[in-house]
Every structure is written in C-alpha cells, then in structure tokens.
C-alpha cells in the first residue's frame, strides 16, 4: 500500500510518501505527484521517512519531478531516506542528482 500526501509547509511544497513504491503502486503515486509539476517559485521536499522501498518506476517519478522543477529554476530536496531506499539511489548512480536534507 502506498500513501501520498502533498501539502504546503513553511512556503515549500512537501510530498510525503508512505509505504512501498513498487511497479504496481507507481501509476497511482505518479498521478498523486502530478500537481508538483506545476509548482513555480517554491522548493519541493519529498519526505521519504516512511518510504520502505522504491523500484525503478518509483525512481522515474522522482526524476520526472526533478526535471519539471529544475526547468523552472526550483530545487527538489529529499528528506529522511531509509537505508534501503538510499541504497537504490547509490547503486543506480542517482545519489548525486538529488539534494538530500
């Protein structure tokens, strides 16, 4: 089960992801994250404190958000990665593409 919440906190858009972001959960999560693509003039924080797993499809959602936000001159920060999820970022070489909080 995946739960995605988006809210504005202290002038930033914060997306909180909870659960297992596998291939099955990716389409629904991608849809829930879509509003972030239209954000302008605000930084985006993806809170992964309660994200237990991420698949390639999940990584693609993160990369999609990053591309949209960077095109508009914004920043995407990732917060609270668990060791397992951090390992996926490292193994695939994406660890330096995101800014971690």
């Amino acid at each position, binding site marked *: 089960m995946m739960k995605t919440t988006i809210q504005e906190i202290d002038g930033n858009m914060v997306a909180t992801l909870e659960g297992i972001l596998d291939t099955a959960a990716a389409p629904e999560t991608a849809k829930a994250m879509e509003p972030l693509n239209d954000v302008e003039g605000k930084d985006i924080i993806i809170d992964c404190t309660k994200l237990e797993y991420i*698949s*390639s499809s999940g*990584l*693609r959602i993160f*990369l999609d958000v990053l591309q949209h936000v960077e095109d508009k001159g914004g920043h995407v920060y990732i917060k609270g*990665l668990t*060791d397992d999820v*951090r*390992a*996926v970022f*490292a*193994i*695939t*070489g*994406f*660890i*330096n*593409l995101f*800014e*971690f909080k």
Partner: protein
Amino acid sequence: MRQYRELRPTLEKLSEDAYGKMRQALSEQGIYVTAIEHRVKSEKSLAGKLELKGAKYKSINDITDLVGMRVITFYTDEVDKVAAIAKRIFDIDWSESVDKRKLHQLDSFGYNSLHYICRLKTGGPRFELQMRTALQHVWSTIEHDTGYKGIVKMPKEYLRQFSRLAGMLELVDDEFSRLRMVLTDYRRQIQTLVKSGHLNEVPLSTDTFRSFLETHPFDRLNRRIAAVNQAEIYPAPMIVYLPVLESFGLETLGDVHQFIDDNSDDAYQLAVSQLAITDLDILSSSAALQYLCLVYVLKHDGGRDELKAIYDTINGESDANGMVADLMLGQAQTLSFMQRSKSDGK
C-alpha cells in the same frame, strides 16, 4: 498630449511587437544578453520633455522615443551583433541614429551607447533602440543618478574624476571581451587535442573535463553495466566527479583515460554485483564513473573512510554517506580485484 493619448494603444502594441521581434531574432542567432527592456514613454515623462524642448517638435511624430527598447549585452562586440540584427529586422532612420561610441574626443571618455531610430518593416511610428553593454549601462545609470549632465555646471576636478572612472569601465569592458576571445581560442585548442587523442598534453580542469565528456568516454562501460538489467541510461551531470579525480592525483586527460582503461573491468564487476540481484532497470549516466572511482579507491588500499569521502565530495558531507560506503565495501569484499589487491599487498 491629446495626440499622445490617442496614439497610446498603438504605441503599446508597437512596444510589444518590436520587443517580440528582437527577442526572437536574438534567440535564433544564439545571442544571450543581460536584458531586453522596452517601454512606452509615460505621460509625465513626455510632459517634462515637452516643457524642456517643446519648441523643437512640430508634431508628435517628431518625437522618436515615445517607444523605447534597450538591449543590454555582456560584451562590447555583441553590441555590434545586436546592431546588425536590428538593421536586418527593422528599418533604420539613419538621419537620426547615433553611434555615441564614435562621438568622443580623443582625450575624453563617457557615455558609450549605440542608438538607432527604427521603424517596423510593416510601417507605423518610429521607436528608439539603445544598444549597450552591461558596464555601459552601469555608467549611464550612475551618470544619470549623479546629475553629471545637470543644469549646475560641475567643477573641473569632479569632471576629471568622472572621466577617469568612465575610462576605467571602457578598459574593463574591452578586457572582458579580449579575455573571452582568449578563452574561446583555448577551448578550441583543447577540443582539437581531445579529438586528435593527444590527451597527455591536456591538463585536467573544469573546461578540459567538459570537452572530454563530450567524447562520451564512459558510454561503453555504462552500456556494459546497463545490459545486466536491460536498463535505460538516464543523463546526469558528471562534472561533480572532477574533484574526486583530482584527489586521486590525476593531472591530465591522459591520466583519466588510463584510469578508465585500468579500472573498467573491475568497476563492471562491482556494478554487476550490486545490480544483478535487483530488478532496477534505470541507470544514471554517471554510474560508470561512480563505480570507477569506488574501484580505484579500493585498489589503492582505501577503506570505508575513503569511499565515504567520494560521496561526501559529490553529494555533500553527511553521516548517511557512511552507510552507502559500507554497502559498497561489503559487496566489493568478495570480488576478484579485492583478492588481487590483498595478495599484491602481501
């Protein structure tokens, strides 16, 4: 003023149209400028102008700056490029256009700017186009602010101070242009050396590493690694690894080339040991370089701290990087190059 008010909507449209044409033409020519400003003269400003110089104008059409556009460039030679573009996209009224850059006495400096009075090719009222560099703009703004050209005549010693500053700005402007030309030449030379394969003659720097990356030196290893999971390769910046390569003592692009040759097979082993047990089918284009760096450190007796230092460099210092270093170190222990390193050390 009545004529002005009637003409105002036409002027607003002219201002937008002229701006749109200039912006499009600059973009097509690949010229990046600091700013393009455009405005319709305000009623208040026009009233002030008419109060001062009203007798000079017989009709509103005699006032050429009701619409004004200003293109501010980075470099002096770009002012001429913008002027060439203006000549192509607008009709220029040469009888009223001024190159103030050429008006100076040999012993004086000051306001440098190129002014054209233009008309759209489709006709309509005239407008003023000012073209200047960022530093000329600074000069002009300060000159205006200090009232240099005001009613009160300025004492000679202050005029001299102004001239000295203006001369300095002009010199700085020219030096920036000259420096850019020198750097462009240098980049061309380096690119030629990189293309011709004379890598040992090219010192490792941000510029040269960028040129080197244009030759896609890590593609082969990336494709090899990606093949393990039939992964897509996603483009990512690699320049962040330059300080890591420098910390290894690599001094030329030849050294980097050798570093790739010496470590590719072992980097492939390490990457496969991590990826083959997953179904991850997306890979950053910097993955090959990451694994090459990790392997280099491990083969040179580096341990957890040295691996963590790589991540601290590319990703900012953090305790979490220690966990990633542990992960890579743990997986590497079983690989053949680590066994070789151990037996070589005996």
